[in-house]
């Protein structure tokens, strides 16, 4: 704090010194003398331009007259220069410095806050990690480990990279975690045990979905350990998202069985199992509702078959329900109805491939 105050005083003094020094270095130029010097310089320039043919004699004369007028005006306006008394100058300087410091200390600044450059913090974290690694938050530990990643002992050490990946996962740095797991795997592909870690990291990198890369990682994890709970958990979530409820349930049940009873992850698996049940019963209800709507639409088309939009909607409905046999039957009926208008039938088939009727926000 004392250092800060002293530095501020030095800065204020230096700034005030600049004002004083400039004032001493640049004494007031007599305005009249300045005007005379300018006049003379201007006339020389006009003559040079006239001699070179840049301006004609008339314009040169006009410019000379103009310059002379300005000189006369300066002569009339010339006043003696004012000199500030040293005491007044000192009061002014102290006022500027005092107001600046008061504004800083009372209103704007935070004199209690020192700098916190990243390098210094990493050094502090490294010291703390040496004393007690658990005392550091994962983000700080991740920073320390990343700093040490280029050390010769660590560069080719698959265990280091595996550990770094796990720390990055805890720090929420999924992309960096995936890269660390990938490095570990490349360093020791045969002994790599972090396939499900890698799959999990890639799952988060992809924004919470199992893509081809994470799928491959989970498959390899299950090849190593068919009861790998984490691989089963994420594959279960993928199946749940894709509506494959039985497969999802099987994955979650396997994961549940693989974990100890008091493992805190049991709760998450139980939640997912409940979600499977809810989704499955919800889908069954929706199927019943859709089947009712489809039956009503079919009855309507039986009575009034000349309804292209209706046929398209019906075909689309069977597509959505995944009822291929039903779709084939309706297609046959529709084609029979439009056998003399094959273009309409083709249009209906084409239309049924996209959103139809109420689904189509573009309007019909």
């Amino acid at each position: 704090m004392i250092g800060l105050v002293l530095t501020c005083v030095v800065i204020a003094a230096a700034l005030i010194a600049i004002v004083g020094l400039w004032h001493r270095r640049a004494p007031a130029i007599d305005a009249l003398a300045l005007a005379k010097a300018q006049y003379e310089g201007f006339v020389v320039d006009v003559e040079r331009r006239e001699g070179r043919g840049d301006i004609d004699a008339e314009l040169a004369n006009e410019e000379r007259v103009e310059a002379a007028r300005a000189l006369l005006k300066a002569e009339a306006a010339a006043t003696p220069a004012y000199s500030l008394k040293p005491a007044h100058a000192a009061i002014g300087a102290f006022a500027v410095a005092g107001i600046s410091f008061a504004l800083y200390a009372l209103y704007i600044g935070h004199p209690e806050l020192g700098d916190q450059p990243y390098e210094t913090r990493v050094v502090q974290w490294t010291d703390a990690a040496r004393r007690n690694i658990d005392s550091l938050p994962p983000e700080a530990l991740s920073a320390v480990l990343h700093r040490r990643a280029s050390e010769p002992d660590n560069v080719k050490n698959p265990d280091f990279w595996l550990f770094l990946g796990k720390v990055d996962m805890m720090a929420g740095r999924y992309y960096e975690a995936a890269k660390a797991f990938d490095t570990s795997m490349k360093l020791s592909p045969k002994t790599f045990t972090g396939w499900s870690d890698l799959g999990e990291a890639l799952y988060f990198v992809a924004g919470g979905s199992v893509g081809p890369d994470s799928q491959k990682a989970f498959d390899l994890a299950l090849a190593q350990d068919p009861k790998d709970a984490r691989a089963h958990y994420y594959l279960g979530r993928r199946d749940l998202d894709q509506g494959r409820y039985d497969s999802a349930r099987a994955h979650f049940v396997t994961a549940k069985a693989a974990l100890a009873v008091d493992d805190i992850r049991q709760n998450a698996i139980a939640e997912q199992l409940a979600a499977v049940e809810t989704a499955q019963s919800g889908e069954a209800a929706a199927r019943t509702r859709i089947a009712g709507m489809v039956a009503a639409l079919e009855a309507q088309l039986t009575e009034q078959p000349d309804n292209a939009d209706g046929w398209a909607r019906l075909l689309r409905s069977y597509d959505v329900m995944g009822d291929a046999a039903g779709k084939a039957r309706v297609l046959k009926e529709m084609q029979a109805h439009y056998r003399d208008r094959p273009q309409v039938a083709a249009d209906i088939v084409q239309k049924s491939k996209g959103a139809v009727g109420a689904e189509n926000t573009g309007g019909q």
Partner: protein
Amino acid sequence: MTFLNEIGVFALVCAFVLSVAQVALVAAGQWKRLSGIERYSEGVSLAAALSLILSFAILIAAFVRSDFSVVNVYEHSHTDKPLLYKISGAWGSHEGSMLLWCVIMLSFGALITLLGRGLPDSLKHKALGIQGLLGAAFVGFTLFSSNPLGRLAEAPLQGRSLNPALQDPALAFHPPMLYLGYVGLSVVFSFAVAALIEGRLDRAWARWVRPWVLAAWVCLTIGITLGAYWAYYELGWGGWWAWDPVENASFMPWLAATALLHSAIVMEKRDALKAWTVFLAILAFTFSMMGAFLVRSGLLTSVHAFAVDPQRGILLLTILFVTAGLGFALFALRVPELKPGGLFAAVSREASLVLNNLLLSAALLSVFLGTLYPLLMQALVDKAMSVGGPYYLAVFGPIMLAAIAIIPISQLMSWKRSDLKGVVQRLGLAFGVACLSAAIGSLFYGGAGVWKQVTFFVGLLAGFWLIWGSLRLLMERVGFGAAAWRKFTALPLATHGMILAHVGLGIFVLGAVVEGHSRISIQQGMQVGDTVRLAGYEMTFTGTYRQDGANYDAQGGIFVIEKNGRQVCEARPQRRFYPASGSMQSKVWLCFEPLNDLYVVLSQPQESVGGKPVWQVRWFYNPWVRLIFLGPVLMALGGVLSLFDRRLRLGVATKARKLKEAV
């Protein structure tokens, strides 16, 4: 423990207090008893500028040291960023860019002190007072509402990083250049208001002001060009100018400065257009401030705009209204007292420059309306609308075409009275060559539709007319034969600068016309092994690659481009993933043909067909697009040459010594 950041805040406070003191000293000096005290404002302007430079240097240091206890650094930096972008991050935010604005503003105040020793004291001190007032307003705004060194008690573990689109060399230098231009016009504003207070507006004033206008104009030209080039190769849309309101916000001061530059010439040479010149001087900086307001008020949604709360926008609007209002009110009061200057005939260089000014002002008005009308409609009747390219092409285009048409004529005219018939005869050959060049260009690039052909021909004619017309002036001044080189080197630098700037404008026009008329593009899903054709070129997708960048991971495509069986380029566009911000960015690949660009953009791969991913690829053929960027560089170079002209040079030490000797 060090307190560098807090010292930076203290230096910022000092700069504010010193700016206020600068105004107070000049104001006190108007009181007869204290007459002369205003001389201290010179040293104060130097101290204020140095104080603010210290503060800015400390902000840069905070970015370089990744000190996340500074809010601004936390929000706009990351430890993984390359050094250049850590430094440029200092002006990548609203707060940092405001500090840069203030640094430039106070530095220009210091430059008035350092370079203005040949100026009359009275005018110089009043200008310093106005500059101090502007400095106090903007530094005060920065300090009290946008402190760039605001602190966090506990530094977060990592920063949020800078928008990847802004991590680009062109954009690292674009804001400083633009601000040098914007804020350079503040000096002109200060001189204008000072002259209005003094009641002294004469040729000498125009002579003192011209270098400042020219310097600001050069910086604006370079700044806008850098921005356009960045938009061209970084945003991946194939264009370089979208008439985005934020782009227009930089273009309007440029138009005003261009008009001012030309009217200041008339005032300097002929003592005419006094009121108009001083009006433009006030207007140009008003547009600069309006640009600052538009990008910071939250009114605009743009890649350029800082997302800032409206309250700060209102503060900026207040500064804009007060300072511009002060300038225009003073102008209205003083204008009746201004004596009309030198008379000139309807056919004269002065008259042609007046016409040029009117056309530039009309162009400025068209851009102003196009920019603000949608904003006003949105604010007043809540109606969303946009004014785009077609409006500007229909309104701005013809006005600028007329302005361009008179430039070669104006260059050959004499002051006071000229002979139009004679000038037209002297330009006959240049016009013929321009027509021939435009006809050849039209035949070469062709195109469908008579109207399109006609507009294309007219556009080409405008560009060639400007170039050949300007070269005609050079030829007249230099001639042919043994003495040509001696005459060429003896020409004043300002004349070289004028010719170069006008040729540069012609080159820009040619580039814009040809690129706008003949650009073609194709967008297609491609798998490795696929080939597409465009404008006689054949592009084959030969493979993909990965690259680990400094703070990104890239996946790229390799495209071999051939013409007539000969490989002309291997394009390697990328999709970059920046883990710090979790965002993707397309990196365009440009293949340089002499004048044309083959521009390849890679979008993210889509669903796989037959096990191979399909990449969306956009490919543009942009003919003559290089000229769009070369032209403004030549214009700026012309401005720099003019700045070094002996007659326009700002007061330097040698002059000061001479004056001292004279005293």
